[in-house]
């Protein structure tokens, strides 16, 4: 009973906040509705017993990716008139994307109803070890069967990270960096000195 109530609550909230994300006029509101959609999707995942993925969804998407979205959207100076002017021009492309998405969803549901989706092989090699907790099951699979795919994903992320740093890093001349070690090593007797300059003569620094 509680499961059913929770499912419908999360599901309705996910769909509704997803819809408001695209209907909302204010882009900051859109991002916040998107975050609510992520959060409710995580709730749905907990209901099917995938609590590890749910927590990752919240930590990675809600906690990191969406914050950056929000930063960018808040910083942008968005001109609504210009956005609406582009509507007619981009309409054919948008419609094409919508049709492709619809077709994929229909195909996916059709394939699911046909029963051709089998999660894991019959001999149990890809199935999660029975009785293990979510994290242990995911870890056992990631570091045995899917080790190379996992490492490859890691390398792709590393390359993306280095790429982002290379793209945004630029050498700026004329800036003086702070050398904390040098500052910490400085002692009063070497940092200050007493001079008695004669009248009319300056100090040689």
């Amino acid at each position, binding site marked *: *009973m*509680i499961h059913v109530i929770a499912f419908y609550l999360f599901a309705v909230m996910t769909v509704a906040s997803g819809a408001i994300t695209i209907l909302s006029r204010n882009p*900051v*509101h859109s991002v*916040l509705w998107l*975050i609510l959609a992520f*959060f409710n999707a995580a709730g749905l995942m907990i209901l099917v017993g995938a*609590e*590890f993925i749910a*927590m*990752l969804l*919240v*930590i990675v998407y*809600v*906690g*990191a990716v969406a*914050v950056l979205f*929000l*930063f960018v959207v*808040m910083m942008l100076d968005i001109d609504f008139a210009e956005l609406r002017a582009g509507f007619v021009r981009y309409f054919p492309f948008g419609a094409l994307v919508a049709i492709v998405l619809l077709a994929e969803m229909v195909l996916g549901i059709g394939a699911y109803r046909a029963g051709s989706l089998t999660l894991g092989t019959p001999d149990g090699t890809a199935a999660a070890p029975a009785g293990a*907790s*979510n*994290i242990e099951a995911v870890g056992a699979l990631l570091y045995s069967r899917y080790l190379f795919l996992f490492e490859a994903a890691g390398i792709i992320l590393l390359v993306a990270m280095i790429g982002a740093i290379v793209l945004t890093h630029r050498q700026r001349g004329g800036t003086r960096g*702070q050398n*904390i070690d040098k500052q910490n090593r400085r002692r009063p007797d070497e940092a200050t000195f007493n001079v008695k300059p004669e009248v009319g003569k300056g100090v040689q620094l």
Partner: protein
Amino acid sequence: MTSFFQSLGMTHDWAWFVSTICGILLIALPLMLSVAMIIYVDRKIWAAMALRRGPNVVGPFGLLQSFADGLKVFLQETIVPSAANKGLFLIAPVLTFSLALLAWAVIPFNSNAILADINVGLLYILAISSLGVYGTIMAGWASNSKYPFFSAMRASAQMISYEVSIGFIVICVVLWSGTFNLNGIVMAQKGHVFGIINGFVANPLLFPMWVMFLISSLAETQRAPFDLTEAESELVAGYQTEYSSMAFAAYWLGEYANVLLMCALNATLFWGGWLPPLDIPILYLVPGFIWFLLKVFFFFFVFSWVKATVPRYRYDQLMRLGWKVFLPVSLLFVVIVSGYLMATGHFA
């Protein structure tokens, strides 16, 4: 507790539901009370270190000061700036306050006193604390005012930066205890060093991790010396500048609930949670939650002590500490700890 409600003739589902609600109230109400008292304690410690008396007028020893403040705030007029984004402006403090309470669901107060004994407990805490950024950003943006916005930007950058190193520190603890369940982590610390000291903190490989965790938790909760978000000389009062009345009080209570949560995490992850400090049978006669509360209070004292004695960091120093010192060092320790555990066959 579920079985008690079942004995009253409820079905299992509803008994679970009612007992969970009771559990939530059993945690949230004492927590709110202790937040009120801890604000008083904070002011008293701070005053004592500055050789002042602190609050001493309302009630005996000024004990009722926080309640008087609460009543004052409650009776104030709620002001919503006319240029503010009203919906978000009012949701933001509610969000901050409720997130500060949510994370307490997985904190073990005793061997069986835990609301949600889930096996992703630590990840849940990381998830909830990563959500905390939104209460701040929304407040800063919705206020439609420059200083709150600057402060919100600072706060969120700071929280995100220090969450990275907190994640790696937590990974070290998880590697050693082999579970994300907080009760499991507490049990793994039983007799951890020489078979007698309860707590990862006495472990030479994890001691530096605890020092970094303590400093990161100061930064994560925006306490001094990392309280740049409310640097009053630069930013008026931070992201809650435009707030008044109960909305302001919600931020205030949420902030201290978060501080207490970080103290509880310090106690749970590194100082053995509800276990007594030493693994001696006679110490187990004292109930676990007394040990837990003593540890939490000790860490709160440390937080106040730091606030009273350490000058505020500059913003670039704060970022340098997070990204150039804590991140590489904690990453190095993940490698060292996992290497040590593999070499000694900890899980073999």
